[in-house]
């Protein structure tokens, strides 16, 4: 499942520079040490578990049940409708 190759230039098609597609090098290459916490102990009331609703709000249920209505979804639907008409 590799990307298609342009037979003329034999190069991969250039990727559009949408901001969401390009990750800025700076942020991704930064390498912080995980362990240097500003202090090494805190009361349990300060943890995310106790002080926020994180557990309830972090996840959206089931990506496989969500129906999206974007450009790709519509194009896919049209393509499949065409197939169905041709094969009835």
């Amino acid at each position, binding site marked *: 499942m590799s990307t298609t190759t342009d037979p003329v230039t034999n190069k991969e098609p250039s990727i559009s520079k949408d901001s969401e597609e390009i990750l800025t*090098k700076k*942020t991704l290459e930064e390498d912080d040490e995980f362990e240097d916490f500003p202090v*090494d*102990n805190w009361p349990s009331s300060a943890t995310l578990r106790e002080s*926020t609703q994180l557990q309830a709000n972090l996840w959206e249920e089931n990506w*496989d049940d969500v129906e999206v209505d974007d450009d790709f*979804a519509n194009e896919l639907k049209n393509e499949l409708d065409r197939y169905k008409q041709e094969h009835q």
Partner: protein
Amino acid sequence: MNFVEVGQYFKHRYYDENLIKFLSCKYCNLEETIFTLDHASENEKLKELFKVTMEIKKDMNAFELKKKKKLNARVAHYKKTYSSIELQLKLMNRIAERETNWIVYPLLHVASGLLKVTLELSKRLRTPEFNESCGRSIHRCFTICLNDRNPKLNENKKIGIYVFANLEFKIYHELNNMDMVRNLIKVLKSRDSGNEIPSLRESLAIKYNSNIVTFNYFMGKYYTCVENDFTQGYKYLMDALLECTVRDKKQINKILVLLIPCAIISRKVYPNFETVERFQKDDVIPKLYKPIVECLLNGNLDKFEKVINNETVEIFILKNGLYVAINLIRELVFLKLIKTAVMQIENKAVVSLRYIATAYKKSLHLQNTDEESLLNELECLLANLISKKLVKGYLSHSNRCIVLSKAEPFPKQVLA
């Protein structure tokens, strides 16, 4: 002026911030704090420890106060400090063997000091020798704690195993040696199943609870990136995340980078980016995972390839040990595509592979492909989904179709 008689701590078996200040390899004004050791002390090991530690402090201070620090001088300083602290740790280890568990936290500070200097050297020399030797010295602290046979549980040094395990995790990651990580976890698991060691929350980690986050993070990282056990990975990483405070943005970021793929794979959920953005330090998480989740929701394989084949993203994925996880998510994007296509037809029991091929071609922007080999490829991909119980049904090669279970063609529970 502050006078600190170091021998008192060892005599009365306790510690406070002054002893920690004495043992740590940090700058401290020796004119403001005067450390002493009673000359009548009979304890030879303690005398030696005092001497070595005072030398380290003087060296550290002299170096700190220097204005210009050239690279060579810096390396020479760290090398010298390394051998002094290694000696300091060896002496502390020998003392610790006969002490009760009051010694664990002071010992941890000496070991952390050695680790700190080792990492400075590692950054500049890029040779493993100091890391390996540091790993061995710290492992000695770990085994002293682990093998303490003191029957009085309130004095037993086993409470120290997790804080030293954390230092070992760190040094093994620096060495990029996952076998050492695996061995350490094996030891902990085997002693844990025999009920021979305290749990994380019964250990010293509960008093210095940044250690709870760190331990759960490294355990989660091991299961996610080495064992590819995303269910265990999710469990440990979620525990790590919930023990953080809102100001630990850096750690939250690092946890989420691993936790999000675990959740996608093992629980079929996906992150609420509004929530994520409230807790993060920069925009790494949404930049990486928003486009991936978008593809997961609509089944766009071509977009997915483009997202992860970006060179910077690729390096990030490899560096963070997420190669396998991301490849599994690719399979889930394919699954979503199949499910979306199947949901759009009346007869969901028997689905022609040519129909699925239409969706597949659209998703990958394929044109003029050889139909037969495309169908073979699809059979292979679908067989994988069936074998992983992501799809319930069977393939008919002669009829070029997939026969799906009526009850539950796309099972809810993911078995990762």
